C-alpha cells in the first residue's frame, strides 16, 4: 500500500543518514532511498524539513520524521515486533540514550575540532577525543556489543567510532583511535563492521576519505 511506503532522504557519506539505514535494515523494513545533493537540496527535503533542511528525513504514511535519534526511536516503536533496537529495561534504555547523546555531543565535535586544527591546538583537542573514547570504551564492559549479544541502538549511534573516525584520522593525518590505545573499542568496531547488515550499509572508504580530505582542505584554507 502506498500509505505504508517508507522513504528515506539521505546522503551517501552522512553517518546520521546511515544510522537510519542500519536500523531499517535490521528491522527488515523495505524502503525507497533518495540520495540528496546537499548543495542542491530537493524541494521534497525542504518541504519535509523546513527547520533544519538536513538529512536524514524518514517519510512513513506520508509523515516526515526528522533527527536521527528521533527516527531510530520511531522505527523501534513502529515496527515493534521486529529486531529490537533499544533494550527493554528502562534503566538500560536510559543508558543507551545517554551514551548515544554523548557520542553526538562530545565525540563528534572533539574529533572535528582536532581534525581541523594543527600543532598545539590539535594536541589539546586530540587529548579530549581520547578522554571521550576512554569513557565510551568503559561502557562495553566485556560485552560483544553495546547492546549486549546483538547490535542495538547505541552500537548504531556509535558507528562513528567504528568507522568514520578512522577515515577522518587518516584524512587529517591525526591519531584518534588505535588498536593499542583502545583495544576494547577497536575489537567492538571490527565486530560491528563485520555484521552483514552494517558492512553493506557503510559508505565506500576510498570515496569517504577523498571527501573528508577535500572538506578538511576547505576548512583549513585561510579565510
Amino acid at each position: 500500500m502506498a500509505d505504508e511506503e517508507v522513504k528515506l532522504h539521505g546522503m551517501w557519506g552522512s553517518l546520521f543518514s546511515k544510522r537510519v539505514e542500519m536500523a531499517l535494515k535490521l528491522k527488515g523494513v523495505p524502503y525507497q532511498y533518495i540520495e540528496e545533493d546537499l548543495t542542491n537540496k530537493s524541494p521534497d527535503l525542504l518541504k519535509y524539513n523546513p527547520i533544519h533542511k538536513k538529512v536524514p528525513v524518514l517519510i512513513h504514511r506520508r509523515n516526515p520524521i526528522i533527527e536521527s535519534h528521533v527516527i531510530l526511536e520511531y522505527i523501534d516503536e513502529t515496527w515493534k515486533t521486529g529486531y529490537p533496537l533499544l533494550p527493554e529495561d528502562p534503566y538500560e534504555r536510559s543508558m543507551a540514550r545517554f551514551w548515544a547523546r554523548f557520542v553526538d555531543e562530545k565525540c563528534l565535535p572533539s574529533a572535528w575540532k582536532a581534525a581541523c586544527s594543527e600543532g598545539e591546538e590539535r594536541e589539546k583537542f586530540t587529548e579530549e577525543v581520547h578522554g571521550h573514547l576512554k569513557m565510551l570504551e568503559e561502557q562495553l564492559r566485556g560485552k560483544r556489543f553495546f547492546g549486549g549479544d546483538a547490535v542495538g541502538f547505541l552500537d548504531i549511534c556509535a558507528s562513528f567510532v567504528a568507522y568514520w573516525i578512522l577515515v577522518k584520522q587518516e584524512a587529517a593525518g591525526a591519531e584518534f583511535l588505535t588498536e593499542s590505545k583502545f583495544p576494547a573499542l577497536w575489537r567492538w568496531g571490527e565486530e560491528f563492521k563485520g555484521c552483514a547488515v552494517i558492512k553493506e550499509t557503510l559508505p565506500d572508504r576510498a570515496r569517504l576519505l577523498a571527501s573528508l580530505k577535500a572538506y578538511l582542505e576547505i576548512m583549513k584554507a585561510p579565510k
Partner: protein
Amino acid sequence: MAGEGRVTLHGTWASPYSKRVELALKVKGIEYEYVEEDLMNKSSLLLQYNPVHKKIPILVHNGKPIVESMVILEYIEETWSDGPRLLPEDPYERAKIRFWATFLHQQVFEVLVLVLKTDGEAQAKAMEQLHEKLKLLEEGIKGSFPGGSPAVNGENMGLLDIVVCSYFGPYKVHEEVLGLKYLDSEKYPLVTSWVKSLVQYPAVKESTPPHEKSVALVRYFREKALQSPAGVL
C-alpha cells in the same frame, strides 16, 4: 513493579533542567526526596553519580543514577507507566514531541541565555535570533499540533509542555531583568497563550521559586556576564 523504590532528585532551584524533572515527577505523582546541590562546591555524591558531565539534574532510583534531563524524562515515563502519560501512544505523535523538545533544548535556550548575558549590539543580534526561533516554534507548533497544545490527554502536562514551561515559564523574570518583552502575544499568540496557561498549573505554581529571588539571581548572572572581559562568561 518497576515504579517502586526510593527516588531522589539532585538539582538546583534555578535550573530549568532540574525544574523539568521536578515537574515530571509531580505530574506522575511520584514521591521523591530533593537534594539541593551547590554547583560552586559540588558534592562528592554528585561527582560519583555523574562523573561524565558533573552536572545536575540527577535522578537516583533504587540507588541507580540517571542523568541528562531529557533521558530522565523518558526514564520516568517508561518506569512509571501507569498513571498520567508524558508522551502519547502513537509513534508519530511521539516523534513530533521529541523533535520539538530537541529543537528547544538544542537551539532556543542558548539564544535566550545569550540575550540575558549581553547588551548593546550583541544583545540586539541575540534578540533577533530569539525572535527567529520563536517564530519557527509558533509556526511549527501550529503545523505539528493543529489541535492545539500538546498536553497528552488535555489534562496533565506532557513532556513538551514540561520542556516549554522549564524554559519560558520564568518569562516575567527574564523580561523584568531585561527591561524588555520577548513573549509577544501578537507575534506569537500560540506560544504565548501556551506558556501562560502552563504557568497556571498547580504543579508549576508550587515549584516556582519566589519572583524576587529569581529576578535577583538572573540579574546577578547578567551583571557578572557583562563585567567579564570577553563580555560573556
